């Protein structure tokens, strides 16, 4: 009997995922900019779902205020661009800014209990929203455009944005993947399963959670950057809206909280629903809310989590497996 990380399935799948990433990179070269923009939106959702899952699924931190970082990323981009930085560099800077701001926030936020943390983060997002509304240079309440993007020809701009989105998504997913495979990752799983037990074994719970929080800060900031790059116009009411949290919660709960593949599936699902129901309006939001609540109550492992449990399947090698002598495998 030996302990293995890779199985035939996960080797195939990881190879397949890499191939998909390469294929995606070719998308702007082949398809219309309309589709490219839609796929950029999908990548944004994937990124957000992965980050929210990093917080809640791996860190046990339920935040209803990640839109704070989305907003920092979006408005940060506009701010840097307005101060003469070339747009795509401004985007990188804004992402770094979001991550940097998450660090001091983490110093007190992580000491809060569940409900206080959730709503505390929400209030922080609201505070940032108000700050932006008071600043005429950032468009105040009416919003602002990233006019510097006009220097690019629309098709090229859409392509650059898509590639940036792909790059961010790959970077953050790979970072999360490596994090989970590392000894750090094992301790994160332990924290999720039983925080007190993990602490008593010497796992530095606070540091681990901080790492996840800051990673999510960077990631949600990156998503905000992509939002402004993709839609070119932002206003505080939408970019700092708690609606983002609603989407993140839906994607992760339905996809599979605490699994690596789950959020991606949830994002694809939400994307499919959004593109089908654009005229739906409140009805589809009722559906989202009700579904999220139902999953929380009845299917807490989400779609992927349930599948994983039933079939013993693990597509990406994030866990360990005990391999029986006869070559039979059982999931860890």
């Amino acid at each position, binding site marked *: 009997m030996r302990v293995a990380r890779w199985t035939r399935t996960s080797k195939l799948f990881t190879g397949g995922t890499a191939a998909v990433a390469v294929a995606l990179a070719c998308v702007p070269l082949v398809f219309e900019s309309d589709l490219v923009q839609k796929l950029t939106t999908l990548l944004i959702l994937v990124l957000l779902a992965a980050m929210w899952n990093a917080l809640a699924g791996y860190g046990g931190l339920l935040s209803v205020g990640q839109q704070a970082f989305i907003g920092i990323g979006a408005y940060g981009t506009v701010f840097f661009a307005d101060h003469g930085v070339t747009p795509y560099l401004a985007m990188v800077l804004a992402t770094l800014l979001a991550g940097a701001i998450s660090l001091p926030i983490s110093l007190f936020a992580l000491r*809060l209990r*569940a409900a*206080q943390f959730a709503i505390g983060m*929400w209030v922080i997002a609201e505070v940032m929203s108000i700050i932006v509304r008071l600043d005429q240079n950032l468009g105040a309440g009416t919003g602002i455009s990233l006019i510097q993007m006009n220097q690019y020809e629309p098709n090229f701009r859409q392509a650059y944005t898509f590639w940036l989105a792909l790059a961010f998504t790959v970077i953050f997913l790979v970072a999360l993947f490596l994090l989970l495979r590392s000894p750090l990752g094992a301790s994160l799983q332990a924290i999720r399963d039983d925080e007190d037990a993990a602490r008593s074994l010497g796992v530095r719970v606070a540091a681990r959670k901080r790492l996840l929080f800051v990673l999510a800060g960077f990631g949600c900031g990156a998503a905000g950057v992509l939002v402004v790059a993709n839609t070119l116009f932002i206003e505080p009411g939408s970019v700092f809206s708690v609606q983002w949290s609603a989407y993140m919660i839906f994607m992760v709960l339905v996809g599979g909280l605490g699994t690596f593949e789950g959020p991606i599936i949830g994002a694809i699902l939400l994307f499919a629903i959004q593109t089908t129901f654009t005229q739906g309006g409140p*009805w589809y939001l009722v559906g989202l809310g009700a579904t999220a609540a139902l999953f*929380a109550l009845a299917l*807490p492992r989400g779609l992927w989590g349930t599948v994983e449990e039933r079939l013993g399947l693990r597509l990406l090698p994030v866990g360990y497996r005990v391999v029986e002598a006869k070559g039979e495998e059982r999931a860890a």
Partner: protein
Amino acid sequence: MTLLNAALQGVFLGAFYAVLACGLSIMFGVMRIINLAHGDIAVFGAYVVFVIVEHTGVSAFVAFAAALPVMVVLGYLLQLTVLERSLKGGILTPLLATFGLSIVIQNLLQLTFSPDVRSLGGSAGALTTASWQVTGGLSVSALGIVVLVVAVLVFGALQVFLSRTRFGWMMRATAEDPDAAELVGINSRHVYASATALAVATAALGGFFLAIRSVFDPVSGPTQLIFAFEAVVIGGMGSLWGTLLGGIALGVAQTLGAQVHPQFSVMAGHLLFLVVLIARYGGGRIALRVAR
């Protein structure tokens, strides 16, 4: 004098926040649940009153009296259907489930009524407009007094309920040790459902006050939730009178903030909340403490 008047108006505003926050505090005290749909339930209550007024033409107060039993029953059912299940899930489950519920309520309201902003100030009679000038520079509105008096009465009644009635003791007992409560013959499910019913009733009262002193629309809920939560945290989680004081503190912070800059009022409240939150590293103890 304007500062003092602002503070006075803040007290009136704060009393309204306290009423909104009351139910949140009850549910947290008894079940350790923070109901993220609380604000939306308050707004739902406002809409129920609105419907009654629209269909019967009675004054908003009468309509509220009629709406109250409906809300109480809905609250009881809410516990038995959704919240009870979420209690078994873990710490995050109630937050997630009530968040989903919040979205459902907001959008169902949006579908039933238009996104238009409404108010019931007109149906509340002279109360909404009457006011007096006390000395120079201090203005006291009839509505403000009514809300303040009602707030004190509601909190006082709850206090008496919890410290002097058998059912109040049963509620505290179930809050402190639901297992042991069952062992002495207390039906914990009924106690929890009653607590939720009580919370929803006070939320409806808060929604009613929102409707007559200001405006509301289907998505007003989250704002009320945030104010209610801020009031609870500022006053100390788990303390009933703390919630009243916290509400008032929040109201005063907001009105004083408005003196600094008109758009600063809500921000001032947020900052007070964050300062208290940080200073306490996460709020007070969980046990429901009743001041003796």
